[in-house]
């Protein structure tokens, strides 16, 4: 949670939902219900959301408003989910996306 702003000089204490747990590549993580999945990952220090299909280059948050699709991941088995505009729910399974797949090998 090292990237969360505890107190802001203009906005005060950030208003957040309930603290829930979710998984990232099988590891347990926590975030606030309703915030974008990408926000919860960023708060937990995760930078890489996916690897590109051809050159296997890492990608992460870029526009944070759902336009660029750089932050897409596999969420509850569905690929290409824009994590910057998809609200976090308890128990979500979030996986790094390799090309269009959850498996690293498929892209090699």
């Amino acid at each position: 949670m090292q990237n969360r702003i505890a107190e802001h000089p203009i906005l005060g204490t950030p208003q957040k939902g309930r603290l829930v747990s979710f998984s990232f590549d099988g590891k347990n993580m926590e975030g606030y219900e309703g915030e974008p999945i990408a926000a919860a990952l960023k708060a937990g220090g995760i930078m890489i959301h996916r690897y590109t299909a051809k050159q296997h280059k890492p990608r992460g948050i870029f526009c944070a408003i759902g336009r660029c699709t750089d932050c897409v991941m596999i969420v509850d088995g569905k690929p290409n989910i824009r994590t910057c505009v998809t609200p976090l729910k308890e128990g979500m399974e979030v996986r790094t996306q390799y090309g269009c797949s959850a498996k690293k090998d498929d892209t090699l």
Partner: protein
Amino acid sequence: MKRYNLIVVGAGPAGLCAGIEAAKRGMSVIVFDENEKPGGQLFKQIHKFFGSKEHKAKIRGFKIGEQLLKEAAATGVEVRLNATVTGLYPDKEIMVKHGDGMYHYKGDSIIIATGAAENMVPFENWTLPGVIGAGAAQTLMNLHGIKPGNRILMLGSGNVGLVVSFQLLQAGCEVAALVDAAPRIGGYGVHAAKVARTGVPFYLSHTIIKAEGTDHVTGVIIGEVDDHFKPIPGTEKQFDVDTICIAVGLSPMSQLLKMSGCTMEDNPRRGGEVPVVDEYGETSIPQLFAAGDVSGIEEASSAMIKGKMAGIRAAYELGFCKETETENSLEKCTADLDSLRQGMFAPGNKGKLIEKTEEGIPVSMNLLTKGFVADGEIIHFPGVTSQKGIHPVIECTQNIPCNPCQDACVKHCIKIGSHITSLPVVENPAPCTGCGLCVASCSGQAIFLVNENYEPGFASITMPYEFLPLPEKGDKGKGLGRDGKTVCDAEIIDVKSLPAFDHTNLVTMKVPAEFVMKARFFKAV
């Protein structure tokens, strides 16, 4: 198929204002927005707006957003969120994706207010995680309470780059440098000055050569550019940063308009491909309007007025508004818009080097190239006077459309006059009581209260302060100059935080008298 008198696409400042004006006049109005929350970019804008009362000056962007949403609800505007308009077809018909379904709507008139998207510049490794848009930084920190990074380099010195740099500091991030390939700072000098005095260095005529890192950003190399914007070998400078923030302008998101078949033009002055519109925003297709950034990049204040004009005109064309009322309302909007488009940053002055203010004072070249006015330059401005006792010192040195300081002073110490871009003048002697309302009212944080005779050998300086932790009375530290460098010892003697100041705290420090016109920021040690 559902039918409305007016369909608005985009619930940002332009779209909401358009919807409100139309609904007020009796039209049935629906506003679609693809986002989960309405307000466009307003809820990320935590600074006080410029302009005059009519432009909602000195109100923070997100507060304006809250006001607009209330007004929209009160006037009966339906706002449909998570709803992406995917097509605009003949006879004002649209398709909307909502959840997993597609829905068909028809309007008697349509206003497109889809805003703009950020531009990008490619450089080596620009796709690395950690390279983000300035908008992404604003979204993360101001909407979601997440620091975009710990140490950040900003590319772009327009108002977005300057304002977001300041917001990064407010969020507790470190800004390593502010870089722009242009030879001069593009945004308001006051925005640059409030960043520079905290110690952020500016590198004009510099660009990013490469981002460093293998799977995320660990550093950045910048270099100086020549007159053709080509990097000069041997001028490279390296910074350890975890985030690179890009603020290099916006492009209108005009795809729906293009699809409609209305006449488009490629107009660099308006930011790219835009519809050809009349003075009310009406395109070549009758009753199809464009308002806000989609019809030409400006900012939220003018977007609100352009939205209003399109809404009023749409109401008139469909018989919801009488001719005289329409004329009067539109005339008022035109006057408000004109006053925003005055001064050194008027659309017609884009890219021009202006060497003198309207008053004939030489413009600070230090401000344009380094982000701060030099000690020797500041004394030429009419808001900067030396007087006995407490008085305001207004370091407002460019003609911009803004006048809240004039209204803030109940003693009428500060005069701008009827011309909104005139530099504020401080009366000499000023009947100042030291209330501090002018300091808090200045959207550019350019007003200081100075008492040159605080006690023998010492002066007091009251400055606007919007950071945490807030200094406390008795704190000892250093006074920083306009350039962010240490100039003297300083001690905090007063901290005021009143509701009327709206989160702009007034921090007063005591400094040796000879630094009264030099120290402009406090750093605890």
